[in-house]
């Protein structure tokens, strides 16, 4: 009885799902079988030993990392640790990398990453860096695409929920960070206010972060205080609109509770247009004020292989009320997510999550409306442009729940629709829908290689979906997220491939492999290693006691450690293993792990020095070993450390027994 009941339940469940899928708009072809054309497999097949055409940089979402996939194969190539500690590499655990995750709140080993953004030259990705935001404890990270490592990170003060970031200006003069939550700012007394005084006491902010072109160090050039709205996404102007920045915002109702309802009352929210060239000029002329706002800027010193922190106590702020002409609002239906600028820079596409149409704004008309003061009023002191005056036109009934738009090189736009689970292709100039394909299921962002830039490479659009029910082998209550690759070479979009992703893949970027491959670092030159505890060769290895701290300079090479015997360590000591990998060959890292380590292991790249802190808890002889398979004798790559009671007379020594010695 029980059994048949269960089976009936399952059958009903499946039928209900099939019924829903067949009947929900835009989700018509219910199965992969009907959606994939015959030669899809050959079009994504990358033969063994050959490389993908594109690198795809995909947000790791709540994993806090950045994942790298190859396109068109969908193969996962690497996960770069950014905001979350990573036991595989020791990132966030080694003494050298801990400062990268240090903020004014202390050490923060996790974040929620959303939007990768490639650095640009002339509004086209240059393959040098990839930025990504930490949404939770507001931070921006810069990943160096020579090493695929997090190279620098900056904390954003006066921000809470760093969602609308990081988007780069055409020559990466700045990346922006807009606050998702408006919050009270200022002194402690100014911040300790009743929540229901939101309208009076809360403020928004958008920050312009400057990455130094040579070093990649980041600082906040200036920050603009805004009315208390929530910023969602942003895009730089380029070409026709160079010098301007656009931010979508919601909660123009200034609600502070049950935002699902209370922030969805108005028919239109806003896209905020910022004249950033003017802001830059005002900042240079000293028109801003320095406001208290402690924040960390952390960066990797490539000579010492160690992260260093600069702590800033304040930030330069521009108050929009003192600088007319800095900010304008454009009404945008309704709760806008994407505000995406087309390759020429003339058109800005708003995507109101709750709107049944897509408004396309004209930059030329925006400028004319500003010049003629064609305003419908103001919002907390910021001029609001007339919707009809700045509109190029609307795409009527494109689908349900538009989220985000990217572009190809032929004047077409591709918009993701969350509610109707589809991608819609339409012509930007003519505002006509050209094609639509279903996604499986509930697409968030989508990505065309270079589709946010002045020169899209086109070829594919990738859907980053929130739900994957029935796409892959089930893995308990939780399923992997999914991405889907579609060809956009022809008139019709064609589904070619599903591939699983980790975390929640919010957004992504892609660039041709040829732009990035030549930059790859193969190893760090041992001659250039200036780590204070480097051992350039086994002769420089050794041991030193400094009070209760014991420092061991250790080397690794296939297949041994030097020293591999350590004695004289006592309970109550803290031991620092400074391990230098003497290899000078691509892809020969060595690992270092010791029993009872409370943090993680190290993974040390060729020519690098990394440090593991270890506090012994018991008397005895403790083994350590290499975790990364390095040669046929990898298993033999091990050593022993003797721990004696506190006050023991065992002399401190570290040694390796020579093969030429009598054993």
């Amino acid at each position, binding site marked *: 009885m029980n059994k048949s009941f269960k089976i009936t339940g399952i059958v009903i469940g499946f039928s209900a799902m099939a019924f829903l899928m067949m009947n929900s708009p835009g989700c018509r072809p219910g199965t992969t079988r009907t959606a994939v054309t015959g030669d899809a497999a050959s079009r994504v097949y990358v033969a*063994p*030993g*050959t*490389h993908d055409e594109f690198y795809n940089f995909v947000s790791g979402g709540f994993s806090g990392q950045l994942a790298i996939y190859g396109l068109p194969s969908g193969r996962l190539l690497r996960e770069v640790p950014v905001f979350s500690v990573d036991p595989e590499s020791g990132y966030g655990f080694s003494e050298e990398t801990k400062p990268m995750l240090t903020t004014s709140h202390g050490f923060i080993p996790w974040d929620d990453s959303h939007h990768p953004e490639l650095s640009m030259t002339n509004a086209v990705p240059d393959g040098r860096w990839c930025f990504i935001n930490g949404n939770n404890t507001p931070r921006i990270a810069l990943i160096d695409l020579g090493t695929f490592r997090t190279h620098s990170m900056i904390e954003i003060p006066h921000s809470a929920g760093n969602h609308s970031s990081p988007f780069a200006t055409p020559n990466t003069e700045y990346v922006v960070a807009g606050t998702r939550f408006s919050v009270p700012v200022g002194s402690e007394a100014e911040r300790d206010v009743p929540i229901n005084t939101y309208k009076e006491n809360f403020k928004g902010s958008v920050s312009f972060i400057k990455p130094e072109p040579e070093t990649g160090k980041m600082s906040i050039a200036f920050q603009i205080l805004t009315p208390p709205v929530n910023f969602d996404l942003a895009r730089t102007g380029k070409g026709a609109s160079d010098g301007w920045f656009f931010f979508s915002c919601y909660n123009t109702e200034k609600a502070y509770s049950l935002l699902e309802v209370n922030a969805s009352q108005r028919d239109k929210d806003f896209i905020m247009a910022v004249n950033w060239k003017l802001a830059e000029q005002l900042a240079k002329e000293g028109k801003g004020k320095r406001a208290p706002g402690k924040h960390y800027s952390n960066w990797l010193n490539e000579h010492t292989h160690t992260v260093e922190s600069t702590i800033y106590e304040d930030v330069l702020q521009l108050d929009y009320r003192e600088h007319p002409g800095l900010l304008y609002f454009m009404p945008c239906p309704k709760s806008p997510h994407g505000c995406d600028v087309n390759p020429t820079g003339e058109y800005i596409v708003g995507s109101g999550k709750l709107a049944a149409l897509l408004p396309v704004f004209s930059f030329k008309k925006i400028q004319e409306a500003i010049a003629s003061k064609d305003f419908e009023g103001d919002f907390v002191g910021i001029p609001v442009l007339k919707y009809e005056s700045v509109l190029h036109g609307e795409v009527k009934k494109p689908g349900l729940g538009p989220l985000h738009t990217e572009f190809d090189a032929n004047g077409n736009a591709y918009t993701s629709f969350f509610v109707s689970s589809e991608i819609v292709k339409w012509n930007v100039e003519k505002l006509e829908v050209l094609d639509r394909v279903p996604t499986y299921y509930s697409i968030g962002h989508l990505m065309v290689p270079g589709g946010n830039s002045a020169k899209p490479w086109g070829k594919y659009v990738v859907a980053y979906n929130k739900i994957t029910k029935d796409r892959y082998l089930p893995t308990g209550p939780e399923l992997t997220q999914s991405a889907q690759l579609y060809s956009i070479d022809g008139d019709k979009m064609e589904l070619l491939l599903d591939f699983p992703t980790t975390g929640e893949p919010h957004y992504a970027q892609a660039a041709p492999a040829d732009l990035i*491959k*030549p*930059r*790859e*670092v*193969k*190893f760090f*030159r*041992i*001659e250039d290693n200036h780590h204070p505890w480097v051992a*350039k*060769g*086994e*002769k420089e290895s050794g041991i030193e006691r400094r009070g209760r701290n014991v420092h061991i300079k250790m*080397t690794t*090479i*296939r*297949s*041994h450690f*030097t020293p591999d015997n350590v004695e004289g360590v006592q309970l109550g000591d803290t031991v620092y293993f400074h391990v230098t990998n*003497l*290899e*000078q*060959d*691509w*892809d*020969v890292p060595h690992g270092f792990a010791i029993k009872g380590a409370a943090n993680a292991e190290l993974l040390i790249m060729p020519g690098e020095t990394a440090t593991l802190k270890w506090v012994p808890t018991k008397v005895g002889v403790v083994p350590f070993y290499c975790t990364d398979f390095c*040669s*046929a*004798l990898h298993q033999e790559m091990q050593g022993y450390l003797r721990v004696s009671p506190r006050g023991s007379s065992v002399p401190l020594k570290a040694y390796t027994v*020579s*093969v*030429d010695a009598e054993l």
Partner: protein
Amino acid sequence: MKTRKIKHILAATFILTMAACGGGESAPAGPPGASGAAAGGAGKSTAKLFTAADITMGDIDQGMVDKGRGIYDMKCQACHSLGANRVVGPGFKGILERRKPEWIMNMILNIDAMLETDDEAQRLLEECLVRMPNQGLSKSDGRDVLEYMRTL
């Protein structure tokens, strides 16, 4: 010109498809994905090997010996004892009585090609079971190490 040629050889040895070590310059195209050192030499190396004619040895040059010792300390000593016994690779004592100078240079600088074409190199791999690491030495570095070996 000479330096450039050597760089070419190194690049081909190091990894057949990609850019040369650290410098970002292009190497001649080979079979994609064929990794030399770590993966066990998937592709055929076309690197040109040193011959006796490429190496001249006169009186011992003390300056070169000193440089060679420095390189040995940093990059070779971890695996090669100055004594007679094997650590990971063979001990260096009396090496020039056993090996020709060009063979030594090739083992230092063209290890992948040697493991493919040289029976003695292959025999040593079977004995030591660890591929000789590419330690990123230039031709003159290799020559300095050879000079140091002459004094052992």
